[in-house]
């Protein structure tokens, strides 16, 4: 592996980036003045559109058993019953009961209409204290998809222009520039040039046709260069026909995270169209949790038609390559004891579980599973854009503690992560909690275990 960034450089970049992220709120433009009735009307439109027969059935299936609280790390971390997952759907249920429910003719007389104040109060519940990790979905005896309904709540609040300032800043920024953290094309090219220099081979950008479209993200461009570098190095090593595109390099989608539908679809469509244009069979999204669902499950929705290309996240792509022998990795002489974090958006919501484990096995590392693993994994505590929301810091810490407690129990010496924002959240959590366990990118680890001689070919 070529060290594209040193530990010290990374720490410095992290400190700088963290400072920037912490000031997002102040960078955001003042919120738009909106009449309360308009907020309510817009939120209702989103709910009415979003509550389909499936959601309706599930809303009518809840018996208030309270099991979901026992799966939620924000409840477990705070013991505050208001963070009970299904409670977060109460507002939506009111709209459902009054407007769509088969009993709406009766419920209109009983259930109170929602107000703008209700919407404001809802912010804390669906942004600060929920990362839509979906763990509650798995404990629910009724199988209610609470997480996706929280996502619908976020959309409703976004429509009511009540998203948190940090996310609004990110969403507005991406709506305007197509990228995040100001990682514009110049910075992208600058970073690629720098990587190219260190890696010692040419990184294909804007090839007209390629089998694989590689996407990166502002977070990696700014900060986690090791992840991007590792991915590129491994692709190069495998001899894959890939390219990056200067007009479609941003994998993050703050439309999805903030709940802003327009931005969500716009960003997904942009990447999808680019993939179609280069004739990609596979789009590799970076180690960025939500970039995967945004494209894997969102591309076809954004275009309004099925898409031909596959979408894989880095760990999935290389994991499959390892599993079917296209990628050989060198075993470490002294195996390291590691724990693996399955990012919610890639694991529970994406079905990528065995691929990263295959990689760890291939390099001979000893994986100590956390008690909750694979689909039952705990969130890092700051997913779904929450790592940017300043006022949610205490909640993030509570969530982090729950997660880290499981990791500590495994007695692993290193935590392997293949998600930038998880990694970011772990780093911040470590600083706050005084933890020292190293958190490493899976992509960088793969690159570090590529055979020295050019051997394996795709």
């Amino acid at each position: 592996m070529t060290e594209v960034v040193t530990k010290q450089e990374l720490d410095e970049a992290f400190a700088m980036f963290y400072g920037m992220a912490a000031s997002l709120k102040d960078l955001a433009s003042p919120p738009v003045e909106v009449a309360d009735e308009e907020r309510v009307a817009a939120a209702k439109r989103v709910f009415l559109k979003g509550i389909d027969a499936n959601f309706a059935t599930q809303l009518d299936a809840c018996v208030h058993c309270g099991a979901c609280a026992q799966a939620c790390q924000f409840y477990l971390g705070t013991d505050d019953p208001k963070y009970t997952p299904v409670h977060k759907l109460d507002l939506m249920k009111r709209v459902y009961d009054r407007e769509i429910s088969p009993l709406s003719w009766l419920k209109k007389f009983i259930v109170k209409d929602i107000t703008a104040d209700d919407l404001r109060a809802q912010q804390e519940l669906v942004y600060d204290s929920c990362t839509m990790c979906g763990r509650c979905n798995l404990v629910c005896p009724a199988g209610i998809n609470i997480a996706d309904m929280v996502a619908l709540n976020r959309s409703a609040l976004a429509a009511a222009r009540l998203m948190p300032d940090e996310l609004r800043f990110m969403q507005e920024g991406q709506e305007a520039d197509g990228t995040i953290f100001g990682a514009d094309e110049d910075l992208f090219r600058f970073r690629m040039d720098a990587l190219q220099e260190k890696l010692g081979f040419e990184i294909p950008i804007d090839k007209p046709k390629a089998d694989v479209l590689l996407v990166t993200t502002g977070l990696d461009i700014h900060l986690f260069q090791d992840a991007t570098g590792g991915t590129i190095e491994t692709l190069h090593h495998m001899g894959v026909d890939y390219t990056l595109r200067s007009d479609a390099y941003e994998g993050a989608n703050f439309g999805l995270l903030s709940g802003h539908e327009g931005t969500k679809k716009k960003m997904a469509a942009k990447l999808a169209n680019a993939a179609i244009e280069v004739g990609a069979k596979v789009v590799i999204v970076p180690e960025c949790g939500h970039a995967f669902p945004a494209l894997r499950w969102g591309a076809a929705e954004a275009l309004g038609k099925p898409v031909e290309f596959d979408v894989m996240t880095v760990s999935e792509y290389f994991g499959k390559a390892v599993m079917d022998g296209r990628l050989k990795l060198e075993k470490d002489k002294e195996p390291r004891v590691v724990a693996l974090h399955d990012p919610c958006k890639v694991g529970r919501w994406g079905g990528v579980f065995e691929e990263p484990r295959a990689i760890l096995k291939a390099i001979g590392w000893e994986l100590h599973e956390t008690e909750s693993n694979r689909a039952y994994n705990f969130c890092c505590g700051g997913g779904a854009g929450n790592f940017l929301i300043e006022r949610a810091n205490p909640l993030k810490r509570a969530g982090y503690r729950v997660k880290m407690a499981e990791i500590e129990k495994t007695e692993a010496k290193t935590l392997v992560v293949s998600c930038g924002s998880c990694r970011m959240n772990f780093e911040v959590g470590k600083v706050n909690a005084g933890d020292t366990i190293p958190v490493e990118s899976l992509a960088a680890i793969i690159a570090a275990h590529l055979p020295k001689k050019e051997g394996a070919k795709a």
Partner: protein
Amino acid sequence: MIRRQQTLGERLEERGISRRSFLKFCTTTASLLALPPAFAPRIAEALESQRRPSVIWLSFQECTGCSESILRAGSPSIESLIFEAISLDYHETLQAAAGHQAEAAREQAMAENMGKYLVVVDGSVPLGNPGFSTVAGQSNVETLKRVAKGAAAVICMGTCSAFGGIPYAKPNPTGAVPVSEIITDKPIVNVPGCPPIPAVMTSVIAHYITFGSLPELDDLGRPKVFYGQNIHDRCYRRPFYERGQFAQSFDDEGAKAGWCLYKLGCKGPTTYNACAVLKWNEGTSFPIEAGHGCLGCSEPNFWDKGSFYAPLSTATELGSGTVAAGVLAGAVLGAGAGYAGRKMQEKGKAGPFEAPPVADAGQKENS
């Protein structure tokens, strides 16, 4: 008449009936009235010293089963003693006098005992055509009103006079009603049953003579001591009910083994009467002991409460028609609600995503 001025004690003495016999009667009467055995002397004392009350018996739409039950003519028993205690001045079936003579006897008894005599009624009163039931050219309702006017109390013997009984059952062609619907200003004791247990009447009269009042009545005007408990609670087959051992048919093993007849439609649990304790035919048996479920004959409307052979806990009106109507109505409502819901969903798809800003805010609009 001289005889009527005598007390019971004098009459007993005259007839050579011993005090022991009388004590025996009083003891068994106390136990019928569910009074502690210690009450027997008080009953004895009262019966001995009181003048014999005059009793007028009116028969309307009835089958004479009640009279038969009371008199049990073929079997004079200790109960017949009560006829020594009363002066039965009018009873169409029993009295020797007939025609005008009989009516005259009644008028005389009424005049002599105005305000003090007892009226016993068996049979229901038709309010339809007066011709449905008349005696001596007088419709039942007229007779009842006339006779009851001077009565101290009315005792309704049998389900027909107490609750309307079988003439009252749907479709009630004669417009029959129970006595209580016509007479509202006199104390009424209902002694329902088809027929009623004879001892009940003697006991009521004994009570009336002893205490000068009617026994305690329940909300249906029945003496509580006889009608206070349901047949089920005192049924000797009750243990089988508790164990869930039910005869499934009248000829199965369970029936032979004397299991509970609940499943065969026994109305014991909802029928308030003393049959299970006093029994019939001088304490020989009662319907359940004979192997048939209770019909509930002493309860109001017993004839119209569904099959005698359907268990009590079954629904009487619920059927496939109800369900079909429900499905239909539900389908209409559901289709309407579904349509309305779809319209709301479609409404959500119209309109902008974001709430429009206040016009003069001058903020950038980015939707």
